[in-house]
């Protein structure tokens, strides 16, 4: 297996899943969520990547071009991820205001 974007993407996703399972702090859980999301974005963009190719902007040249579709749709995913993270952080602020803790085991008891 070569050291390419797809491999790195999968490793990043696994790091995110590990964090999601083991971390008890709400902020760290949100970070793990965003890391998972970033891993998928990296993997998806690497699918359309061709070594030595150019961005898909049409000129009168016969050069290789990368697949523009993953880049276009990953922009959408980035924006969604941003929105979700902002919402989750807003909820974390509210939870901290009410309970004065961010630890999930302590929150479950309250």
């Amino acid at each position: 297996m070569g050291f390419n974007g797809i491999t790195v993407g999968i490793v990043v996703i696994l790091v995110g899943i590990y964090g999601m399972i083991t971390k008890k702090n709400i902020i760290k859980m949100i970070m793990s969520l965003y890391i998972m999301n970033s891993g998928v974005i990296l993997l998806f963009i690497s699918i359309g990547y061709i070594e030595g190719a150019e961005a898909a902007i049409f000129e009168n040249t016969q050069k290789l071009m990368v697949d523009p579709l993953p880049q276009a749709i990953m922009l959408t995913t980035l924006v969604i991820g941003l929105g979700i993270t902002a919402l989750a952080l807003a909820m974390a602020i509210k939870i901290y205001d009410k309970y004065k803790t961010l630890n999930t085991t302590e929150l479950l008891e309250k």
Partner: protein
Amino acid sequence: MTHALILIIVIPLLGAFLTHLTKYTKLRRGAEIVSVASIVFALVLLLPMAKTILAGKTIQYNLGGWPPPIGITLTMDGLSFFFSLMVLGIGLLIIIYSLGIYVYARRFYSLLLIALSGMLGIILARDIFNMYVFFEILAVASYVLVTYKHKPRAIKASFKYLIMTESAWVLFLLSIAFLYGLTGTLNMDGIASQIPYLYHTNPLVICVIFSMMLIAFGIKCGMFPLYTWIPEAHSQAPTPVSSLLSGLILAIGLYAILRIFYLFFGTTLLLHGASELIIYIGVITLIVGASLALVQDELKKLLAYSSISQIGFILVGVGLGTSLGLKGAIFHIFNHAFIKTALFFSAGIIISQTGFWKISKMKGIWRRMPSVTFAFCLLALAVIGIPPFNGFVSKLFILEATLLSKHPVVLFFLCVGILLTAAYYFRIIQTFFSTEEFQSKPDFVPQPVGPFEHLSTYVFAFLCLVIGIFPSLITNLIQPAIGVLLP
């Protein structure tokens, strides 16, 4: 109307933004008028398609006029028609229910309309990435709706819902990435046509994609180990939102399972053991949900666990994959959405009138509010599946399909599940009709409950009876949907 399909999605979305603009007009209750009008408008656009759909044809619309492999396609076929009718009908009744409660402001109607348009988008989209985007739209709107009253416990529940659902969508996106890498297209029909070849060359990859999608949709619809967000989010949300979550959002998860699994894996993986997996997950979900409901004392939490056990029932029907099993499953999705929405409505009325959340405190409540208690009991009988209610017909279809496909163990557990359902609902009915005098909370001021809340609850209860007596009203609509799933 050539643009009807996109307008069905866009009109509720436009209505969502117009509700905020009513602040600058002299209109009294402008947000409510706009939201009801936009849903009715979408229904008016949808209903003329019935003739084409019932004849077994499909309507296709290419966004921007680009043909399928390049552009984004919206398709209306039997399955989409049935589900969009259900979403719009139940969505309209949820809005009518919340009309009477004055605490719901513009923001609430706006979010509700965004959620409904997200659902319609999921139902109509034929591009798998677009489906993901509409899922996220629905998810974001529903997180905020759960926290609508800013109760601390609701925010906690919503956060749990957010973390679990977002992990599900990351997995779904990962499986989309794999599918795009393997097939080079995002169009669902295009992917489906290449899956059999991929399955023969490399079955492992298809298995991985299937399991990631199963986990993603399992979190959304509440499969056995992944249901933990359901009880908290359902019980902490305001009443109309609980009905939306239980009635429609779980149904959308099941729609995705029906649509994607039967389209992608219908001829490959589902025939080689995956359907058995879905059946047994369904049985475990059924038994676990029902057992947890049996020991539950909080009314709304009990209804949430009851939803989980009914989902198990539906999953068995989905997994069987026969024509009769799918008929029962789709019919039960409809019935469950219908009955559970109304049960949450009546539970909401009872809770707002008494201030009690615990069932044990509601002894002898029928003297205080006879009509709502009566409606609750009728709906409870409908969930259990007692004739002549609609729950009976769909459960009968699923049981018969299980019997015909020779799964005696599954049949036994389905009957146990029905008995458990009866046990916990009869416990509530017994408490409601207890001979003891009802002890009200000393310093509790009941919020006024208007005619709209009562009206929508009774309409639902009456319709349950009508559908139970004339099931062919709905089964005729389901027939083209089965034609889509089993070509």
